[in-house]
C-alpha cells in the first residue's frame, strides 16, 4: 500500500493513529488530579513533538544512513524560520507559502553548506558544519539585525505590508492561518474530569509530519537509501563499484536540510516568532542527541528521542516544590519533607540534571537507543534467544564508524 511493504505500512498507520489520538493519549490524567502535571496533551507541546519529530527524522536521513554527523543542522531550521516569518510579514499570514518558502530557502542554504562541507569527512565534516551554523547564529544575532531582528527576533506586526492579505479589522492581530483557519483555534472536549484539546495547528503539523515520515520510509526503502547506507559502510567499495558517493551524500544533506527547514517553517506557523538562538550550536546538538537517544538509523527512533527530550524540557521543568507537596499531601509531614528533599534537585530548575541522567542511563543500558532498547527488552521477555538472520537491517543499526 502506498508503495510500502506491509510492515512499513503498518508502522505508518501506527504512527498516524498515535498522532491522530495524541490529544487523548497524552492527557491520561484528569485535570484536577495531582498527576495532571504529567499531561502533555496541550497544543504547544503536541506541536513541538511533531515538529521536532520532523527535524530529527530528517537529520536521521543524513546521519543515520550515511553516518555523516552534521553539527550545524539547526542553522537550516533557523533559516527556514526566518524565511517563513518574512513570507508572513511581506506576503500573507497563510502558512502554506510560509512553509514552502522555508523548505526552499533551507534547501538552498544546505546545498551551499553541504557542497563545501562534504569535501571532508568524519570529524572534519562535523566541524565545518558547526562552523557554518555558528557563523549563521552570530551574524543573525548582530550584524544581520536588519533582516533577522537580532536578539529580539521577528514577529508579525500589525503594520507589516502582507500584500496578499486583506486589511486587519480594528484591534485584530495578524494570526497564522490556513485559508482562514487560524492555527491557534482549538476545540475543547470535556469528559468527566478530563479535558482534551483538539488544536487546528497541531493537526496541520501532524499531517505534515505524517507526510514527512512517509517520505522518510520511502527513502529508507529506496535504492537511494541503500546507497546512503553503503556510503556509511565502505566508500572505497562504493567508488570501485562505479558510484560517485559525493552527489548521494549531498542529496542526503540537502534533503535533511529541507526537513529542517520544514520544521523551522512549521515552528513559525505554530508560533509566529523567530529568534536566532534556535541556530545556536546547542540546538544543533539537541537534534543529534534526539536522534541518538531514539536510535540512529531507525525509522521511528528519532521521533521517540525528540518526544523524550521535549517532554523533559517542558514537563519536568515545570514541576516545582509546591507541586511536589501537593503530590505527597497524603503522607505524614516528615515523610513528605523527606521525599520532597530527595526529589527536589531533579525537578524544576534541576530538570537538566534529570535529562543528563536519562541520557546516560539510556546509552548505558539501552545501546542503540530507546527503540533498540525497547526491542531488546521485548526479546528478553519473549525469551527469544537466537538471532534471527531475517531481521530487518534498519532495526539493527551496526556501530557506525563514519561518525565523528
Amino acid at each position, binding site marked *: 500500500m502506498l508503495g510500502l511493504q506491509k510492515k512499513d505500512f503498518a508502522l505508518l498507520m501506527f504512527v498516524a493513529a498515535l498522532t491522530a489520538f495524541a490529544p487523548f493519549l497524552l492527557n491520561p490524567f484528569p485535570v484536577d488530579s495531582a498527576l495532571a502535571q504529567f499531561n502533555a496533551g496541550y497544543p504547544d507541546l503536541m506541536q513541538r513533538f511533531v515538529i521536532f519529530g520532523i527535524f530529527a527524522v530528517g537529520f536521521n536521513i543524513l*546521519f543515520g544512513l550515511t*553516518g555523516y*554527523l552534521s553539527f550545524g543542522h539547526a542553522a537550516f531550521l533557523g533559516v527556514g524560520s526566518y524565511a517563513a516569518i518574512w513570507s508572513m510579514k511581506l506576503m500573507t499570514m497563510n502558512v502554506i507559502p510560509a512553509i514552502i518558502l522555508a523548505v526552499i530557502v533551507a534547501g538552498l542554504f544546505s546545498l551551499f553548506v553541504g557542497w*563545501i562541507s562534504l*569535501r*571532508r*569527512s*568524519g*570529524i*572534519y565534516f*562535523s*566541524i*565545518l558544519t*558547526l*562552523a*557554518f551554523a*555558528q*557563523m549563521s547564529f*552570530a*551574524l543573525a*544575532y*548582530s*550584524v544581520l539585525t536588519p533582516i533577522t531582528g537580532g536578539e529580539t527576533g521577528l514577529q508579525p506586526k500589525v503594520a507589516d505590508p502582507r500584500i496578499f492579505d486583506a486589511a486587519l479589522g480594528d484591534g485584530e492581530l495578524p494570526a497564522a492561518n490556513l485559508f482562514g483557519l487560524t492555527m491557534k483555534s482549538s476545540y475543547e472536549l470535556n469528559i468527566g474530569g478530563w479535558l482534551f484539546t483538539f488544536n487546528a495547528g497541531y493537526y496541520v503539523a501532524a499531517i505534515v509530519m505524517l507526510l514527512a515520515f512517509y517520505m522518510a520510509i520511502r527513502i529508507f526503502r529506496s535504492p537511494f537509501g541503500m546507497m546512503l547506507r553503503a556510503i556509511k559502510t565502505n566508500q572505497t567499495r562504493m567508488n570501485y563499484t562505479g558510484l560517485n558517493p559525493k552527489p548521494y551524500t549531498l542529496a542526503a544533506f540537502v534533503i535533511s536540510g529541507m526537513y529542517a527547514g520544514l520544521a523551522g517553517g512549521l515552528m513559525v506557523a505554530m508560533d509566529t516568532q523567530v529568534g536566532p538562538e534556535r541556530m545556536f*550550536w*546547542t540546538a544543533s*546538538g539537541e537534534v*543529534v*542527541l534526539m536522534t*541518538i*537517544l531514539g536510535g*540512529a538509523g531507525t525509522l521511528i527512533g528519532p521521533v521517540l528521542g525528540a518526544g523524550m527530550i521535549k517532554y523533559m524540557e517542558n514537563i519536568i521543568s515545570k514541576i516545582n516544590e509546591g507541586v511536589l507537596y501537593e503530590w505527597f499531601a497524603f503522607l505524614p509531614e516528615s515523610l513528605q519533607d523527606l521525599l520532597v528533599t530527595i526529589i527536589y*534537585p531533579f525537578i524544576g530548575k*534541576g530538570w*537538566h*540534571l534529570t*535529562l*543528563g*541522567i*536519562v*541520557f*546516560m542511563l*539510556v*546509552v*548505558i543500558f539501552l*545501546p542503540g537507543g530507546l527503540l533498540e532498547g525497547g526491542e531488546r527488552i521485548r526479546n528478553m521477555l519473549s525469551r527469544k534467544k537466537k538471532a534471527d538472520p531475517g531481521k530487518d537491517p534498519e532495526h539493527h543499526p551496526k*556501530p*557506525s*564508524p*563514519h*561518525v*565523528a
Partner: protein
Amino acid sequence: MEAILLQILNGLDKGSAYALIALGLTLIFGTLGVVNFAHGALFMIGAFCAVIFSRILSLSTVTEDPTRKDFLGNPLKIETPYVESWFGPELGSVLINWSVPLSIILAIPVMILVGLAMERGLIKYFYKRPHADQILVTFGLAIVLQEIIKYFFGANPIPTPAPDVFAGSFDFGALIGLEAGQIIYPYWRLVYFAFAAAIIAAVFSFLQFTTFGMVVRAGMADRETVGLLGINIDKRFTIMFAIAAVVAGLAGVMYTPINSPNYHMGMDFLVLSFVVVVVGGMGSLPGAVLAGFLLGILESFASMAQVLSVVPGINQIIIYLVAIVILLTRPRGLMGRKGVMEE
C-alpha cells in the same frame, strides 16, 4: 605597532587557554578515540577546585558583633577564618591570598580521581561503542557534573582573585623600550602563559621520550593487536585519561583569576576547543597547540576596533571562518594524521 604587539600578547594568552584545553581534549579524543563532551566539565571542575579550596581556607568561626546590625536589624555576624586563628592573621591571610595557586595541590589529586573514576566507571565501556553513543553518554555526564556544581555553587560567577603580588599589571612596552603606558599587561596572564607552556612541555616530553606514547597510539589504532602482544592497554588508557583530566583541571584552576568561574564555563569552552583540536588536526598534539595559539591571536586581531570598522562583526565569526578556510585548504587540519576520525 603597539596595538599589534599587545594583541599578539593577548592572543598568546587566550591561545594558551585554548591550547591547554585542546591538549587535554586531543589526548582523549585524538589518541583514545573517544569523543569526550565532558571535557569542558573537567575544565570547570578544575576551576571549582580553586573555589572549593579557597572556601576551605576561609572556613570561619562566627561571632556576633552586637554593636553592628545586619539588614534585618539582628546583630551582625563576624567571620574569622580558621586558618587565620591557627596560623595567625598574617600567615593566615597570606594563605588565603594565595589560594588559587595553592589549590593546585587539591586539584591534582581531585582531577586524577575524577579522571580515574570517569574512565574506569564509564568511558572504558565505550571505547568500542560508536562515537554517537560516546557523544550521548559524555554529554549526559557533562550535564550531570554541571548541574551538581550549580546545585552547590549557584549560577553566578564566583570571584577568585589572584594573589596580590600578581594582581597588578606591568608596562611591557617600557620594558622593550617603547613608549611607556602603551603596552600594559597583567602579571597573572603572564603567569598563565608560562604555566601553560610548562604543562605543554611536560606532556610532550612524557609522550615523546617514553614508549608510553607509542603504546597508547598503537592501542588506539588497534587495541586487540596490542593486547595480543601482552600489553595491558586498558591500564595505559586509564592513565592517559587521568593525565588529560589533570591537564584540563589545571587549565581551569589557573584560569579562575582571569575570568570568575561559573557552572557553565565548561560548555562555553567546549565547542571552541573542539574547533581548535580539529583545526590542529586529529591525533596531533602539536597541531592542537599551534591551532590554539593561532586562533587565539587571530581572534584578538579581529576584535580590534580598526578591523571591526572595516568588516563589522568579524570578531563574531573569525574563528569559524578561519576554521573553514584551514579545513578546506588542508584536508586534515594543520598537522592531522591520516585516518584519525576521518570516517
